[in-house]
């Protein structure tokens, strides 16, 4: 026995394994493109102060079309200016910060609530399962945007309230997925072994079952971040989003909506920005699914 343990190579550190699993995405061209788009926007958000040609809320010449030079001839309004003379490109660059902060964080919070619920429902079964499943069915039966509109219109609009609404509306769906995975995993031998060792139920759920359910959950998380980006955008578009004047993409589209048929440049570019970011997450999810099915 002693000899055998020596020949077993040391397990790589958790961080290294994590990085290697991310590198696997290179095997899927679609996933690589998705990751590339996301990284591009992350970079834009991080460097917003450096790469944005103008401050996002300063007023210059209104209603300039794209590629108009500034009055002093030194700079250029690459994507034109809006009704109040603010540079559209700079507003898009700065708007990326909000959505890239809020969307993943809101998704994370929804998982924080949904995962324990799903674990409890799937592992403990019984009355807890019945109640949780029924309640999640009730919330999922709402057309999703109806739910958001009613909640946000009633409790008011702020980053915190959007976070709460997203958590409230997404947690049941996450719970359902986790529950399904747990129902499959709870009959595995390593779970029985852990039960025989006398591990506590929550330790079994969190340490034995959850790590083995991570594959489908990571794919789902990517898709969900995409949905949450759309949600934040829709709320901004409907006038229920983050308060002005700081730019956010959905709010920009709403602000310029009435003028969109005569000055399309103001709406077209925020639309492309948000669509490309959502596309990035969807492609990444598709690539991850492809890679995970392969082995």
């Amino acid at each position, binding site marked *: 026995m002693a000899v055998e343990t020596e020949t077993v190579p040391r397990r790589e550190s958790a961080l290294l394994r994590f990085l290697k699993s991310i590198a696997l995405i290179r095997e899927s061209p679609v996933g690589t493109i998705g990751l590339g788009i996301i990284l591009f926007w992350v970079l834009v958000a991080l460097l917003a102060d450096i790469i944005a040609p103008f401050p996002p809320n300063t007023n210059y010449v209104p209603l300039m079309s794209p590629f108009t030079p500034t009055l002093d001839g030194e700079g250029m309004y690459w994507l034109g200016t809006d009704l109040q003379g603010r540079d559209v490109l700079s507003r898009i660059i700065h708007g990326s910060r909000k959505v890239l902060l809020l969307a993943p964080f809101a998704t994370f919070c929804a998982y924080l609530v949904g995962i324990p619920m799903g674990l409890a429902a799937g592992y403990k079964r019984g009355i807890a399962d019945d109640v949780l499943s*029924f309640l999640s069915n009730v919330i999922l039966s709402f057309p999703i945007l*109806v739910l958001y509109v009613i909640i946000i219109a009633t409790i008011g609009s702020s980053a915190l309230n959007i976070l709460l609404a997203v958590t409230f509306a997404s947690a049941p769906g996450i719970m359902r997925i986790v529950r399904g995975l747990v129902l499959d995993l709870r009959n595995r031998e390593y779970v029985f072994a852990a039960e025989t060792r006398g591990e506590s139920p929550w330790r079994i759920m969190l340490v034995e079952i959850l790590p083995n359910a991570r594959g489908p959950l990571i794919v789902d998380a990517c898709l969900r971040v995409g949905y949450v980006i759309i949600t934040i955008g829709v709320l901004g578009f409907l006038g229920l989003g983050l308060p002005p004047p700081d730019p956010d993409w959905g709010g920009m589209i709403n602000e310029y909506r009435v003028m969109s048929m005569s000055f399309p440049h103001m709406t077209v570019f925020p*639309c492309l920005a948000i*669509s490309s970011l959502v596309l990035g997450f*969807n492609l990444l999810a598709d690539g991850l699914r492809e890679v995970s099915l392969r082995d």
Partner: protein
Amino acid sequence: MLVFIIRRCGTMALTMLVVSILLFILLELQPGSVAVKVLGPYSSEEQRYLWLEAHGYFEPIYQRYFSWLLNFVTGDFGDSIRFKVPVSEVLWPRLANTGILAGATLVVVIPIALLLGVLAGMREGSKLDRFISIGSIITTSVPEFASAPLLGAVFVFWLGWLPGTSGMIDGLDPIQLILPVMVLVLYDFGYVTRMTRASMAEVMMTHYIRTAVLKGLPYRTVIMKHALRNALIAPFTVIMLQINWLLSGVIVVEFFFSYKGFGALLLEASLNQDIFMIEACAMVAVFVAVATQTIADVGYTYLNPRIRFS
């Protein structure tokens, strides 16, 4: 089968009941805030008190809930604060308008999505499959509030072919429906396509299809006679559930094109705190969603012979 249908309807009724309780808690728990919404922020304390008393708001909460629920079931939704008429007078015509929009969307989505899904799933991994799959990912990544201005820029601003708003001031005008339907179709067809593709691909892997191919049947016969029947059971459910998504989509599209429909009404009611209108709209929306889910469930069990004959 009958027992199953009755049980599904029971679940549906229970869901509606819980939804009504949630709505009641969210919107009507504090009588004071209801009075402010109905009478406006500049009403005096006395006015609010009199109004609350006249409308039975000082009774115990469970009694209030049951009389509220009874009114709802009998179709009496109260008066709209914003429109100053009974809620039902505004609600039903708006719902009919949305029905037209949603119906037109489904009429376009279903054939396109099924055709593309079957074509993609027929030969999994082929060039056509990759093309359709990636295409459907791209279209579902463009949210409705982005595709509406984009399509508007192309068809209204550059080409000038279509009107930019769909107010329907002079009655129903099919030309004004084109752009809203296009936006909804673009966002919705991808999901149904992907589901149809998955279902078709699964069927193509089965033994009986392999047998059919190996015994020398023409490929067309294998697809049309053997594969399609089983492959189209799952998309039926997906299409029914799509109605739930469509209800979300119409809010955005109707708002953007100022179409006088149910979604725009719900949004207007929410933004103006038109409390009884919000309640009625929410209950109607959930009813439509839950009813289509129930139909989808019942239909699925009916269509699937493995369940029907067991």
